[in-house]
């Protein structure tokens, strides 16, 4: 298992310069107030992990993985674990950056607001990746990328329609109801979504011919 996780992390490391440049551009824009850091986490995580899927597909890694011990069993699990490791690392970086930016701009650290924003970003990242991974395994990165665009487009339209036409008081009531338990509720939801996604991906992978 460790070997498979290492493979994904080493692939990310190989492209670290590109990601570092992107991160730098993003940080500069965040300091100038042109960009919100909360977008950075989902953007970077999804982009980095999608690049690993693309390289896997280009070199037909999955057929090779299945030919080595426990490949079919561990390949998908390793991809999800590498994703979690990446999310944790990027979350730490973004949290630190958010504190620095907040302090530089206002001389105070708005702890509650930053944690809330980061938590929302992590939730969005996990939701996005949970949706995209089974599609990656089923249809391959090329088709899944189109799927990802479609999902984002649909979410934006549905979100817009909800804001415009739906009475949001019920949602606000629900959020008030969960109140201080929101971290537990959202954490449980996140873990459940990721677990269901993993189960679907694993099922697809076990049945797939390479």
């Amino acid at each position, binding site marked *: 298992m460790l070997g498979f996780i290492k493979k994904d992390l080493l692939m990310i490391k*190989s492209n670290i310069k590109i990601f570092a440049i992107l991160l730098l551009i993003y940080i500069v824009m965040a300091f100038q107030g042109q960009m919100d850091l909360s977008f950075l986490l989902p953007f970077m995580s999804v982009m980095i992990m999608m690049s*690993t899927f693309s390289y896997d597909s280009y070199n037909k890694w999955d057929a*090779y993985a299945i*030919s080595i*011990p426990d490949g079919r069993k561990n390949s998908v699990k390793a991809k999800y674990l590498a994703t979690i490791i990446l999310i944790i690392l990027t979350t730490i970086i973004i949290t630190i950056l958010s504190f620095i930016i907040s302090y530089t701009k206002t001389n105070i650290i708005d702890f509650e607001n930053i944690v809330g924003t980061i938590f929302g970003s992590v939730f969005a990242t996990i939701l996005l990746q949970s949706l995209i991974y089974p599609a990656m395994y089923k249809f391959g990165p090329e088709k899944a990328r189109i799927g990802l665009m479609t999902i984002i487009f649909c979410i934006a339209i549905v979100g817009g329609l909800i804001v415009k036409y739906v009475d949001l008081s019920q949602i606000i009531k629900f959020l008030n109801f969960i109140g201080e338990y929101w971290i537990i509720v959202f954490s449980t939801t996140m873990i459940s979504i990721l677990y269901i996604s993993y189960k679907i991906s694993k099922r697809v992978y076990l049945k797939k011919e390479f």
Partner: protein
Amino acid sequence: MDNILEVKNLCKKYQGFELKNVNIALPKGTIMGFIGENGAGKTTTIKAILDIIKEYTGEIKIFGLDNRKDEKEIKENIGIVLDDIFFPEILTPNDINNIMKNIYKDWDSELYFKYLTNFTFPNNKAIKTLSKGMRKKLEIVVAISHHPKLLILDEPTAGLDPVARNEVIDIFQNFIQNEECSIFLSSHITTDLEHIADYITFINKGNIILSKTREELLEDYGIVKCTKEEFDKIDKKDFIKYKENKYEYEVLIENRKLFNKKYDVSTIDKITLEELMVLMIKGEK
């Protein structure tokens, strides 16, 4: 003699192609060359042996174990080179060592780097920067660095220049020095197989049409080159296939000595695997 690999009645159906009752038996300590034209079913057979493809029928045993039930134990002991299938190309030979030492119980980093040094590999350069020949050599080095007992190789010498092919064949011959080890390799480069294979198995359109020892094929089989008049005198049951060329007939026969006793023809040559392949596929009966 114990068989290290046994395939019995392997069948797999795709739209427009079918593997039909493929049977293979590879004895311990030997090399089997698996030949056939493109699309004949070589890679499909190898993928079934490795359980990469699904929904095939038949029985596949490696080291006497079922290839699906005892997958982990089997795969710990086999080394693979697959056509155009490998690690993502942004990784380096050093990365591969880091990964493989956590995958194979018997991964031997010292042996791996010894081979890389012998081949003067740049250990820190991404696979994508390597030439096709270097990449193939890396695949072979990766396949043998965990001391496998069986190598399953799909076109391992494709794209290599003669010098590199020679180096690779030397590796295979060293590997086979251990009598417990065997190699099953598919190749288009039949001259390589004429040098190293103990057995030749020939697949055509999903059917195994021939499986013999190299000696049987290269010593007994022959190619008769004759005129139309001479060809007309040959009994149909005394040849396997024939091909009509512009000035002569080429006739594939199973036993040169017996044929020579029975017929008076001017030329009976030993056959090469390439000629055998062409006549078996393109020849008529």
